[in-house]
Each structure stands twice: as C-alpha cells, then as structure tokens.
C-alpha cells in the first residue's frame, strides 16, 4: 500500500497531541471556558477543530492521488 504523506500524518498527529498527550497541561477547572471546566471546554473545542486538521490532510491526500488518475 502507498504510505500516507508525512504532511498528512503530521496533521493527524495534532489532534492526538491536543486531546491525548498534553492532558497534564489542560486537566484543570480554572479558567472556565464558555462556563465549562477548562478540561471539558478544551476537549469540546478540539472535537470541533479536529475536522479542520483532517480536512487539511484530506486535501493533501486527494491531491496526491489525483494526478496519477485511477490506476485501476
């Protein structure tokens, strides 16, 4: 299988960094985000931002796939 491009992988890594690995940095109550505890508000904001990252990855991957046309 053709491996995904590094740029797409890097874009995929952003949500992992934000939602998973950085948990000690954002797991607290204050300051409140939109009236929610900081950790919950942070997660919800990143759920909304993740499609943006993946949309970027999609643009990169489909641009890579197109020039060669449908090889099948």
């Amino acid at each position, binding site marked *: 299988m053709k491996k995904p491009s590094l740029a797409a992988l890097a874009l995929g890594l952003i949500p992992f960094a934000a939602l*998973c690995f950085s948990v000690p940095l954002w797991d607290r109550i204050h300051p*409140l985000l939109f009236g*929610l505890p900081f950790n919950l508000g942070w997660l919800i904001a990143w759920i909304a931002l993740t499609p943006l990252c993946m949309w970027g990855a999609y643009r990169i991957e*489909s641009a890579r796939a197109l020039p060669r046309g449908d090889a099948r």
Partner: protein
Amino acid sequence: MTPAAVCLSTIIAIVAVGTTVGFLAGAHRRMDLEQWTVGGRRFGVLLMFLLMSGEVYTTFAFLGASGWAYSRGGPTLYVLAYLTLAYVVSFFILPPLWEVGRRYGMQTQSDFFGVRYGNRYLAGFVCIVGIVCFLPYLQLQITGLGLIVSIASFGGIGRTTAMTVAVALLVAFVCASGVRAVAWVSVVKDVLMLIAALAIGIGIPLVHFGGIGPMFAALIAARPAHLTMPGATAHLGHGWYISTVLLTSLGVYMWPHAFGASFTAKSGDTLRRNAVVMPLYSLSLAFIFFAGFATVLIAPGMSNGDLALLSVVRRSFPPWFLGFVGGAGALTAMVPAAVFILTAATLFAKNLYRPLFSPTLSDAQVARLARAMVVAIGLISLTLAVFTSSTLVSLLLTGYAGVTQFFPGVVLGLYWKRVSAAAVFAGLVAGLASAVSLMVSDHDPLFGVSAGFLALCVNFVIVVGGSLFALTLGAEEGRERTARLAAAFH
C-alpha cells in the same frame, strides 16, 4: 392515560417504526452473501456516516458515559477524546483496507488476515478471538436495553421481557435485510438519539440549576475534585488517561464489525471524507456529559451509576418524553447489537465452519448457515444478559483490550512488506495472554497504565522484533514466502 401507559405506548411506537424500517430496507433485493454482509459495496458518504455512527454510539454512550461521569467524574473525559481520535486513525487505515478488500473480495476481518498472511490457522484464530470479544459488548447492549426500557416504562415492561422482545425483533430484521437493515434503522436511531441528547443535556441543568454554566458553578463549589483526574477514583490519573485513549482509539476499528463496515463503502475516498466529518458527531456526546455531571448533585448516593441518568430524566421531564428517551435508547441498543450478531454469525459460518468442517459449502449455503447462527448468537447473548451482571464500562474495556491486539497485524500488514505471519501470530497470542492475565489478576491498571495498552506494547515489540529476526536469521523458504505474500498484496 396514566403516565406509565403514555410512556409505554411511546416506547412501543418508536421501536415499531424502527423495526419496520429495518424490514423494508432489504425489500426487493436478492439477499446473497455479498448483499447481506457488505451491502454490495455501494454505501455513499451519508449512509456510511449513519452506519458508523450507529455502530459507535451505542448504549454505552447513553448510559455508560453518564454513569461514569456520575460515579467517577474526571477520568470519563477519555470517552470524548477516544471517539474523536478513532476517526483520525480511520483516515489512515480504512481507505487502503477498502482497496485490498475490494481487490480480494473480503467481507470479514478474518478474510483480511487469511489473505494477507496466507495462514488459515491465523485467520481462524482471529475469527475466534473476534467472536469471544463480541460477547461482552453484545451483553452490554442487551443489559443496557433492559435497564432503559424497564425504567422508562415505570416498570411496566420487565427487564427480561424487554430484552427478549428486542432480541427477537433484531434477529428477525437482521435475517431479512442484513447490513442494509442496520444502516437504515440507524437513520431513525441517530435522529432520535440526537434530539434526546440535546434535550437531556440542556434540559436537566436548566430545570435544576437554571443552565449549564450555573450547574458547573454549583458542582465546582460543592465537589471540585470530581471534575479533574483522578476524580472519584484512586488510580485513574493522567498515565491511565493517555494509555486508555491510545488503546481505545486504535481499537475502535479493530472491532470485527467496524472493520467489516468499511467494506460497505462505495470507495476509499468515501471513507476518507467520512473520517473528516465524523468527529462532529462526538459533540452530541458532550451533552450526555452535561447531564451526567448534573446528576452528581441531583441524585447523590446511587449505588449503580448506570441508572443515575435515567432516574433523573424520570424526575425532570413529562412522561411522553421519558417514553421518547426509552424508545430512542432501545433502538440505540438494538442497532449495535444487530450489527454484532450479523458480524459474529458471518465470521462463524464463513471463516470458521466452512474452512474447518465443510470446505465444499457454496456461498448460498454459507449465507443460510449464517442466518441460523444469527438466531443462535441472539439466544446466547440473551441468556448471558439475563443471568450475569456487570457495570457497562468494565464490560466494554474488557472487549477493547482483546480486539486492539489485532492492530499490529492490520497496520503493519497494510504498510510494511517484511512483516511475517509467524511474528503476527506470536504477537497476538502474547498480547492477549498479557491482557487477560493482568486483568484476571486484578492488575489493571498496572503502575497507572491501562493493562490492555501494556499488552499492546508487548504485542508490537514481538511482531516487529520477530519479523526482523525472521528476516536476518530465518530460513530462506520463509523469507521468500513473506516476500511473495507481500508482493501479491501491496
């Protein structure tokens, strides 16, 4: 009408509509094995979105997540993270999987292992592990359904009666319309579930506190430690969070049904676009969290957290809405249960029974056997749900620790030419053995890290190390075989 009668008729009406849609979904189509299992590989972005959300947002999201928010607090946030990250993982895995699936006519996860690694014992083993891991997940749905319907009907429908009727209905529509029924019932379920989640998440805090903001202000004043990790638990801190989020987000698409669902797509591009938009659906879960946290102050001291949300809904809303939640909740259990049963039955008939006992069986005979297995597995899971009990989250995490062990074999099989069948087999066995022994001996989490994740690390090291070892020292014949399989596949 009495409140109980109003509730009861609403539940029955919703389940009846959902079931009818399931039966109609397969009408006027010839249901051969390919139609029944992968919908003829014709599903577009919208139907894919609905099928996948139908499979992923289960009773667990409804009751388990709110139950954990109630009983454990902060650590429950892992649910929001893993469901979002699972789609990021799917973006990179499912399109190539779909590609090879079409090339080799794969319908199940076991087919993938059989073709990629050319080893029918590995394929058979994957099949058995998949079916075994399904049982707790299936039991979770049916147990949850019993809880929802019996509470929402004010006890008018007993737990056992509700579970029996629901299993009978879903077995019938799965036999009739296969995966198409699941996708279309999922349409009904998703709409209802979304309305229910929004109404509960906004309504409960509004009724009891005057809004979501004031609700959290009250909770922060009363129980500040409940909202961060480890919350009300002793060991579920940040190490547990990171390892559990990784384990479960890598694991979502290793469930045999989710794996198989990717073959129903029209193209690899459909799956990629689907992965971009799916996280937005997780936002609906945030509302279940609002409701779950609100129950902490409204109904303190309940011993079974899984029941907290429903008992608060019963106290806060009129009976017809309780019936609405009960009906939506019942469908939310029936859709995933249907797809689990469908997948387990196909696995058994196609990947276990035919290769081992009766290689001459035609596809049409396999399809008939699979339908008979739908009935059998329905009965087994119903029996399990009636006679055993366990909280919903613990059931789910047990299954995850098992299926995620497929991950190295899948991802390396897709992207690494040198991975050897023997190493994948050894890694899978070692991963499962470590997960089971840690969980059974009550060492989960171990040093603050989820046992399933540790097992996955063991598994990865063995697969990569074993493949490299086979490459340098292994017999010439084995090396050639690995290269030949990879060449045919890649």
